């Protein structure tokens, strides 16, 4: 509750800060302050302090895992603003508004981690995505940005429509918006009550719209265009924090509901996982633009995260937290460098290591993490996903397919490393690379390595 209220309020504060000052540095500073406070206030909630007692009529339920995910999302946003704050300021003329929108997105994220009913889910998703439509079009004079924004808006509304339809069907079948009452299987007696057609149809529609939100194939077609067209700095935000929050909601939503779909669930989900992995990885191989490659790689990573949905056990829940954090760290790190480059193609990275060895090192760690090489957080993230799927049993073939495709992913991640280290060239930047930026990125790299050595460092917080 703390986080929802505070992030909404601070969003308003950010909006009006644009009137009070034109100094962009102050605005960025203000938003960093807001994020730090938000993080602190969210942690206070975990200890039960400053909670506004409000009867949500069971529409919301705050548990430790949700609060912990909030903390991860806020922390990742904080890092994102620290690393790329300058680029947010320089995207257009209204720096304050972008920050306000980012805070509103975070409000949506906090609702999504606490929803206990389908209506709150719908509200959370909408609050999270509507600001994104605007951020995607933030580069007003750029045709691609406009196109991406419109495309995102149309496709997003369409999937929202599907979601509403699903909610309506479920309401029609059960008479409730709650997600707790939907299980039709009676485990104690072993007798199964056949779920009604409406309920199954509703669940499938929900599944489809959630797949759309997390860009799982075959509902991924918007992703490359939107990620490519949006200003890179906002792509970074969309591909990490927003996407992870979508996943969190996805898993929370289907946690107790897979029984409704029965055996068809075990056909539907593996199919989606397989083609998401296939399309993401194979298409990423052929990209020449790093930005577009990262868009496809985010589809591929979504495929891996979907294993948590299949696993649906303790490992999956811990794993998705770890995955969200390490994937966000690495992707924010790479985007922070990419934004500063003039040329987004692979050649733009040529010779980076000779000019900025320190920067190249941190970027390499981020890339290794995305590829899932041991000693980085990405390894344990993937490890948890595979592990939870193997523990759940039944789809070992898919696990094998996933690791084969993970080997493919090495190909496109390492091409960036090759460009940085083994090719010669002179990278040109939009902005000078400051020492502070290099150290901040190094900090991200250190966090990734720490996660790769002791993933329990992060997960232990969760048990406190």
């Amino acid at each position, binding site marked *: 509750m703390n986080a929802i209220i505070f992030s909404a309020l601070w969003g308003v504060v950010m909006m009006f800060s644009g009137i009070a000052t034109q100094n962009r540095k102050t605005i960025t500073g203000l938003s960093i302050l807001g994020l730090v406070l938000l993080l602190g206030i969210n942690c206070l909630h975990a200890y039960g302090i400053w909670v506004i007692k409000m009867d949500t009529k069971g529409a919301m339920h705050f548990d430790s895992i949700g609060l912990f995910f909030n903390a991860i999302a806020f922390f990742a946003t904080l890092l994102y603003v620290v690393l790329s704050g300058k680029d947010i300021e320089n995207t257009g003329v209204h720096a304050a508004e972008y920050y306000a929108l980012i805070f509103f997105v975070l409000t949506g994220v906090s609702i999504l981690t606490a929803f206990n009913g389908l209506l709150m889910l719908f509200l959370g998703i909408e609050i999270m995505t509507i600001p994104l439509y605007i951020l995607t079009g933030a580069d007003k004079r750029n045709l691609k940005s406009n196109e991406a924004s419109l495309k995102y808006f149309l496709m997003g509304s369409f999937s929202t429509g599907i979601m509403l339809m699903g909610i309506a069907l479920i309401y029609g079948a059960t008479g409730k918006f709650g997600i707790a009452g939907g299980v039709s299987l009676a485990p104690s007696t072993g007798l199964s009550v056949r779920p009604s057609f409406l309920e199954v149809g509703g669940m499938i529609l929900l599944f489809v719209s959630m797949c759309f939100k997390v860009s799982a194939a075959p509902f991924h077609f918007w992703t490359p265009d939107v990620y490519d067209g949006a200003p890179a700095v906002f792509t970074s935000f969309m591909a990490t924090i927003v996407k992870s929050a979508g996943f969190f909601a996805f898993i929370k939503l289907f946690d107790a509901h897979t029984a409704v779909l029965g055996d068809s669930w075990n056909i539907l989900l593996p199919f989606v996982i397989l083609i998401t992995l296939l399309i993401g990885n194979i298409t990423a191989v052929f990209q020449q633009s790093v930005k577009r490659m990262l868009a496809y790689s985010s589809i591929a990573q979504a495929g891996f995260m979907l294993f948590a949905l299949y696993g649906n056990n303790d490992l999956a829940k811990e794993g998705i937290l770890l995955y969200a954090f390490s994937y966000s760290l690495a992707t924010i790190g790479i985007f922070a460098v990419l934004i500063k480059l003039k040329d987004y193609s692979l050649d733009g990275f040529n010779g980076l290591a000779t000019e900025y060895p320190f920067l190249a090192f941190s970027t390499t760690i981020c890339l290794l993490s995305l590829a899932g090489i041991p*000693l980085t957080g990405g390894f344990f993230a993937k*490890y948890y996903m*595979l592990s939870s799927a193997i523990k759940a049993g039944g789809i*070992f073939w898919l696990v094998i397919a996933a*690791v084969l495709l993970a080997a493919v992913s090495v*190909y496109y991640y390492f091409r960036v490393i090759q460009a940085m280290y*083994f090719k010669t060239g002179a990278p040109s930047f939009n902005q000078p690379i400051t020492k502070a930026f290099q150290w901040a990125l190094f900090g991200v790299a250190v966090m990734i390595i720490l996660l790769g050595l002791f*993933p*329990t460092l992060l997960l232990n917080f969760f048990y406190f």
Partner: protein
Amino acid sequence: MIPVLLILIPLITGLITFAFSTADSAKKNALLSAVATLVVAGWSVCCTPASALRFDIAWLPVMGSRFTLEMDGMSKMLCLLTGISFPMIFLAIFRQETKSAPAFFGWMLLSQAGLMGVFLAADALVFYFFWELALIPVYFLCSIWGGERRIAVTFKFFIYTFLGSLLMLTGIIYLSYHSPGASFAIESLTKAALSETQRNGLFWLFFIAFAIKMPIFPLHTWQPDAYEESPTAVTMVMSGIMVKMGLYAVVRWLLPVYPQSSALYADVIIALSVTGMLYASFIAMQQNNLKRLIAYSSIAHIGLMCAALFTAQPSAYQGVMIQMFSHGINVIGLWIIADAIEKQLGTRLLSEMGGLAQKAPTLAILLVIMGLANVALPLTNSFIGEFMMFNGLFRYNMVWAGVAGISIILAAVYTLRMIQKVLYGPLNPTTETATDIPATAKWALFVLVVLVIVGGVYPQPLIDLTNDTVQALITKH
């Protein structure tokens, strides 16, 4: 404590080496570190208390993984081999110009740390960690300092091995879920309750990873290219030590965990290995490229070791232990000579060489000794190993022994052909101006030659050292 030192010394000195500014200080630091590691490795061989050879702390209790390092005879032997190889490699290239030397030697030491970790790990997850980490430094070394086609070739090598290790990782996770206590420790993995289908499937997941590393026909295609394009110092690491990772892993993680499947598929694997031996030998006979010739000869030797491991014969196991060490010594010696020749003449094509014996007598003597060791002539170190392996193979199946035996003859053919083409015949414009081998390389080779001959005359210490591993393997079968 010893196992930790073996990893930490190269790791820390390696990281420090990156910070050096001059090539000279980096080289000296690397050599010093390598010698220190050698001393510790030597100490581990003499050290008897088991407590000093084991290190165990909690790492990831939630997952059932502990950071466990343990040394048995085979670990000691391979750590010793790694310990000996690195100072020799550094000596051999000590006088050479290396661009951005601090980074080069830093990566080299890091790869040593990774290799040591592979040979020491007694927990499957730790093993997997080091298995991957040994690869990363080599990737950078080859891609930055390698030959013309280095980037593509190294990439192929990297993806090949990474693919194998990922398959192994899924196998490890699956296996640990079926082991008592869901642990990754080797003791509990051997007790995993598996059905026959599960066992056989997992066996192949593991074996493919190891076969790519060794490499076994038909998964060997990365190897000749990678050996040719890598800087020679790295080729020495790869062919001398890294291929042993595959053999080591079979002994440590495959045979004890899946004894039944190993027996079941022994014929398939021996068939593949023997095919690879003959195939590689025939190609080596046709090779005009010195480096590729040695690479193919290496495939042939590794094939024999792999075949011997699946015969389940005590003498074959013992032979593999000896041969792992001997092959490391011999092949590093051959690479040092090949590198010296290439640096001298600027070519690696046999057709452009000839008459070097007149110009470089020391080099000629050393090459002949190393060449004969490669053929496994009696009184050289590899004779004992090969003899015991063939003995085991013969007892297992006479036909395979006969077919594999052809490769002995072929080895003599291609090695002697190489010696003849390099050393004898008339001088030509390329070799006219050749001089003898540089002093540091000479010293390194001298040490290796001593090891070749001592190993050939008195291999008993090596047999005693690895006896416990062999005994443990026999009781499993």
